[in-house]
């Protein structure tokens, strides 16, 4: 039996921390995703997440803080891709080179790891393990920083993403913004891995925003929709997973994908 909601009230307090983290991640993912779409960086997100996975695996092996490890891995990947791949074409090949390396490194670390097997699998495909308080504080602080910085640079970043030539003529520091955004993206990826796992990060950082741009063209409505979609997917996924024996990630990815299909449908009806 997949679902069993009979003792839901007892279970719910156990995932309070996970839910808080889920809300934070949805806000971060929904907002960062808007620029992932604008800047055409979906593939780079995937590459960053594999290196983030490597970082997490290595720290798991060494007995360190997994969140810290995934942040380090993410940031290295984000900066390498950001500095070497300022153009889309170069970026794709650099991402493709980094990705298998990160995945291989992660698998090496995990195969040497002697601890609980579910920890290993969780990094790749997500986990619903109770998030402890120190972890919660870590993730919330990172989220707050990412959201604050992103809102601060939102308009110039939009300008630079649309037309770097014109933006830089107006004095917008296009290159610095691009590096700052890569750092924010790296942090967002590292956080998301804690919930949906390295392989499924795209469902949080790309799908909600990709859905939102299907149904709106307003620069104000899109970020709100994107965050809303991410919230439904993450919180819905956690609540559904609670009543079942399956991990959280299939629920998150399925809800996320369903929203995308609905948005495409809405777009199709509108344009008919």
């Amino acid at each position, binding site marked *: 039996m997949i679902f069993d909601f009979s003792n839901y009230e007892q279970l719910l307090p156990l995932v309070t921390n996970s839910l808080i983290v889920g809300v934070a991640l949805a806000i971060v993912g929904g907002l960062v995703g808007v620029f992932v779409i604008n800047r055409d960086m979906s593939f780079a997100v995937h590459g960053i997440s594999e290196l983030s996975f490597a970082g997490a695996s290595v720290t798991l092996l060494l007995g360190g803080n997994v969140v810290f490890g995934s942040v380090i891995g993410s940031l290295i990947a984000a900066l390498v891709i950001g500095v070497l791949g300022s153009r889309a074409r170069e970026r794709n090949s650099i991402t493709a080179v980094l990705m298998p390396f990160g995945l291989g490194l992660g698998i090496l670390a995990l195969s040497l790891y002697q601890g609980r097997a579910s920890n290993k699998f969780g990094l790749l495909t997500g986990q619903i393990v109770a998030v402890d308080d120190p972890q919660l504080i870590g993730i919330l602080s990172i989220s707050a920083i990412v959201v604050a910085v992103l809102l601060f640079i939102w308009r110039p970043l939009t300008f630079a993403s649309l*037309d770097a030539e014109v933006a*830089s003529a107006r004095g917008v520091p296009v290159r610095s913004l691009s590096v700052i955004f890569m750092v924010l993206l790296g942090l967002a990826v590292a956080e998301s891995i804690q919930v949906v796992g390295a392989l499924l990060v795209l469902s949080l950082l790309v799908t909600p925003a990709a859905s939102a741009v299907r149904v709106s063209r307003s620069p104000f409505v899109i970020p709100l929709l994107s965050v809303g979609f991410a919230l439904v997917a993450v919180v819905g996924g956690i609540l559904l997973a609670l009543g079942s024996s399956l991990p959280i990630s299939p629920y998150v990815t399925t809800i996320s994908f369903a929203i995308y299909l609905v948005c495409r449908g809405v777009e199709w009806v509108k344009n008919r």
Partner: protein
Amino acid sequence: MTKPVLSVVDAKLEVDGRVLWEGLNLEVQPNEFIAVLGANGSGKTSLLKAILGQMPLSAGEIRLIGKKVSRGSRKIGYVPQHRQPETTMPLRAKDLLWLGLNGDRFGFWFPKPGAKKQFEHILDAIDGRRLQNRPISELSGGELQRFRVGQAVIDEPDLILADEPLSALDYSQQAAVAELLSRESREHGAAVLFVTHDVNPVLSMVDRVLYLAGGSFRIGTPDEVLTSETLSELYGTAIDVVRNQGRIVVLGAHDDHAHHHDEEWA
């Protein structure tokens, strides 16, 4: 004489050992419309990049309203060459105008009292009311360039730089966009540096011409510069300037009009 908007003093630009131009002196006054002409690779776009501080001069200096240029400026409006936006960005035509007004501001931006009025004014000037809510990906070349001119002038800059803004437009669109740029810049006393390979669409608006060729240059009114004698001297080879029904055609300068690309931006 009023204070120049832009002064280029003894400027020299050398790229990979090749001198694009040297000894370049140019003072641009408010309200002046200057066409920058020359063959491919003569350094027209590089001049704009030098003014934007994106390309360091080999010698000399460039001043914008008395201050040495840095990387871009709020006092500059910029109209790029027409191309469809690379990204699939979900923006509407009117967002282009707003970005011209506040796209360089960080943090939360509270509209200045006149901002909305200014937006409406420019929207009317570029005849963009009907198009304002269209996604930019659905605008035609001429429509997009009209909004780009609006974006460049909306913050009332002192200097407008335009890099081949008419290329890839048909003749009637060229005339409309050029006329719009000239009218809007003069309204605020802005000076215009207009890089183009074809002077004809802007001939009636041009005050002076800067013609770059073979590491050298000529500055003057169109009648002074665009003559067979001046250009032959500049190129060091026989050039024919033909005037026919108000249009000017430069023959023999190896400027391949039909396949014009500016490699520097590619």
